[in-house]
């Protein structure tokens, strides 16, 4: 059995102007959404409190809201989570003015406990499922750390690919990664899905996955440059993409299979993670075909760059190419 039985080389690169425009459009849209709507940051990043409670019967949200009001948490958001019996309550961090007393500080940490006892008073079938409290300073730090993690990962990968292949490929694959990350984050921004720590982990996993794809393609391009003596760079890239297409599709398909399993049976907490990765896999597959190769081509990759040089000095061959 074979997904695609291609006897002819598909002329992928002929579409590269259209796809470049498409990619740029998506990136601009993502950045625009990020700039205007921002991200729906999760508790991990904003700080605040979160309480998940489950009741034996369907929960009466208005009643829960009323209890919140009575206890001085009028700003709390109350919503169902997963099923009608589960309720998720979120409370923004209480900001303290300078010089407030220590007593108040302890209070803000006790929010979870206070609310839990108020809810059990309202309905004694209420059981605590999870309480989270994140101090505002910790939240900010996590956000910084997350961004730093992403940048470091990209930089290390850039160095590895540059050493292993060639700088044009490195730039191509890292641009593809940046492309995937921006668009995935853009999707979360546009749809207003909560962005928490596990989603960040997923976005970082997208980097790993998309890279995997890109490397396989680049590897084949390099091999073909060395093997096929005649032919234009564009043609060789097309041949390579056609040869690896089957593998790209099969792997994306199996990965998508397990992610769908996670999305549907993995539970409520892992949904954001699965969504981010699933989308990332799709966009990653696309970018490994179009973004990475197009950029390498646009940067003027040629057969000479791929030949194993006798002088094993990095950059020696590049100097000769400089006009």
């Amino acid at each position: 059995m074979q997904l695609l039985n291609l006897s002819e080389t598909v002329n992928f690169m002929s579409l590269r102007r259209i796809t470049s425009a498409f990619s740029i459009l998506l990136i601009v849209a993502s950045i625009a959404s990020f700039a205007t709507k921002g991200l729906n940051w999760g508790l991990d990043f904003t700080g605040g409190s979160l309480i998940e409670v489950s009741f034996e019967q369907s929960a009466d949200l208005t009643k829960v809201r009323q209890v919140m009001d009575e206890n001085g948490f009028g700003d709390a958001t109350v919503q169902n989570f997963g099923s009608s019996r589960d309720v998720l309550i979120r409370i923004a961090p209480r900001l303290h003015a300078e010089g407030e007393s220590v007593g108040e500080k302890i209070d803000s940490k006790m929010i979870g406990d206070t609310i839990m006892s108020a809810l059990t008073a309202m309905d004694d079938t209420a059981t605590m499922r999870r309480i989270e409290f994140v101090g505002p300073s910790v939240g900010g730090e996590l956000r910084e750390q997350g961004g730093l993690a992403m940048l470091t990962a990209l930089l290390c990968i850039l160095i590895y690919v540059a050493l292993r292949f060639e700088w044009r490929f490195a730039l191509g694959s890292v641009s593809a990664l940046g492309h995937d990350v921006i668009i995935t984050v853009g999707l979360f921004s546009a749809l207003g899905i909560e962005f928490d720590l596990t989603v960040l982990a997923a976005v970082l996993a997208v980097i790993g996955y998309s890279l995997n794809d890109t490397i396989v393609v680049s590897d084949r391009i390099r091999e073909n440059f060395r093997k096929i003596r005649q032919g234009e760079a564009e043609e060789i890239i097309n041949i390579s993409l056609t040869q690896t297409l089957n593998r790209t599709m099969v792997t994306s398909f199996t990965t998508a299979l397990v992610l769908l399993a996670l999305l549907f049976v993995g539970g409520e907490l892992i949904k954001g993670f699965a969504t981010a990765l699933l989308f990332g896999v799709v966009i990653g597959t696309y970018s490994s075909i179009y973004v990475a190769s197009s950029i390498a081509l646009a940067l003027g990759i040629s057969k000479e760059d791929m030949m194993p040089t006798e002088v094993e000095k990095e950059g020696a061959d590049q100097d000769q190419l400089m006009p």
Partner: protein
Amino acid sequence: MVVLVLLIGGLYSAPNLYGEDPAIQVSGVRGAEVNALVLDTVVAKLDEAKIEYKKSELAEGRILVRLKREDDQLKAKEAIGDSLGDGFVVALNLAPATPGWLQAFGAGPLKLGLDLRGGVHFLMEVDMKEAMNKKFTEMEEDFKADLREEKIYYRRIAQTGSGEAVRVQIRKAEELDDARRFIEKKYPDLVVIEDSKTSEPDLLVSMTEQKIKETRNYAVDQNITIIRNRVNELGVAEPLVQRQGQERIVVQLPGVQDTARAKEILGATATLEFKMVYQDGDIGAAMNGRVPPKAKLYDSKKQGPVLLEKKVRLTGDHIVDAQSSFDQYGMPQVSISLDTKGGNKMSAMTKDNIGNPMAVVFIEYKPTEVKDKNGVSILKKYEEVISVATIQARLGRNFVITGLDSSSEAHNLALMLRAGALIAPIQIVEERTVGPSLGQENIDAGFNAVMLGFGLVLLFMLVYYKKFGLVANVALAANLVMIIGVMSMIPGATLTLPGIAGIVLTVGMAVDANVLIFERIREELKDNRSPQQAIHHGYDSAFSTIADANITTFIAAVILFAIGTGPIKGFAITLAIGIATSMFTAIVGTRAIVNATWGGKRIEKLSI
């Protein structure tokens, strides 16, 4: 080799099949020792309450009783707790039911994260500014005393506005150099410079980088010791108290639900009081209720009841440090340092009391089950005499307590002295509580997702690559076993929900290596190579691609692990392990099977 590696992987993942026994764990606090006698009491109580148990054992200073039924756990806890009293903590636990022959290999089941087993996670931050302030105050007092002793007159010694140094204002300019030389000599870890901004003879004394680091570390370590002590009293099985970064402490309490109580106990305050033993009293009469008006009856674990003076001679906030060590004869001792004020008081107290016994009382306010109308627990005062020692000479700022029975007693005493000393305040900056029902649900959901994803991939590979797909499936199954085996083997690794997601993702991506190889073989076959050659070329040419692809993903996983915290770390560790094991099973493992099946034969067609 493949068989050997798989056997080891299988061996270490095997304990996960056995599940856990409900158990009761008894451990001692404040030096109370758990011994065979206690074990006998526990067993006798269980028999009395007609609670059936599988096994009782005494190991590593604690008793573990495995029960037959989970319902008996609470009943057993009550029965044992009532009979043992204060010095022991009885906790509910789940003990892995790993058989002895597996334990002999050091194999044990996977440790589950809090999101899977339920419990509380606290992140606490030590107030470093306060800790540094205390250090500077101490420096001020030291300088004042020292300079007075050296007869160097000063106008004022105080912390600077920026809070980074102590300004020493000397009265006579010609004594500036003397003061400077003196401080530099006595405190080599301080930096002394002349303040060039003022015309006055001023010195600025600050700490070296090394000293600042030490002070910070001390503040964190001291808090960790105290928190550990308190956590032990909470009666939690397998708690975790660990430093995180520069000034934070992670506390994880599996199975704890009542976070309010946990927070109160962690935040309890302790103090110490030094008192003289009351000399004229009669213990016998006092125990019958006739306590002299100036004395109070105390209980001490070591000496039994003692009568102490009511007057408090010195309080614990003067203690700067307490360390257990050995004297020149190799006997255990505890050396104590006080601040200047404390030193003076100690000196005054001991001057007229040489030859008399002095006692240290440890006082702790702990929340009780009783709550007042605001829902705040009423605090109860616990007092305990932790040491009675005879004063041998007039004491000053530094002195030692000797005559201790064992080094563990010395260690405990030092610990309690430090716990009663003034410490840098801490704050909870993050808290996560997961209820037990959610934990179990997370396990179930995670397990289902792994199984469903795994099943779908197996099915697809079988249909798509036929016999070779079967080979890949065997490798995939082996991979799953090995991930679990490796995770169980690494001592610090815990399985969390994102970790399960990592495993699921690995299952999806692990087939990639096989897909690469198989697609290559198909291509070679299309180029009219013989099946044997195709297999050979397929594996060889796919190898470098697979290596490159996996190494880069591995880099990403390592960075995630290094920078990320909490859930991200859990995900990164399974991803990294998965990449390593999948490389092995997908390349070496499948090749071995393929060679065994098709190798050395003349074949016309491959089932691929």
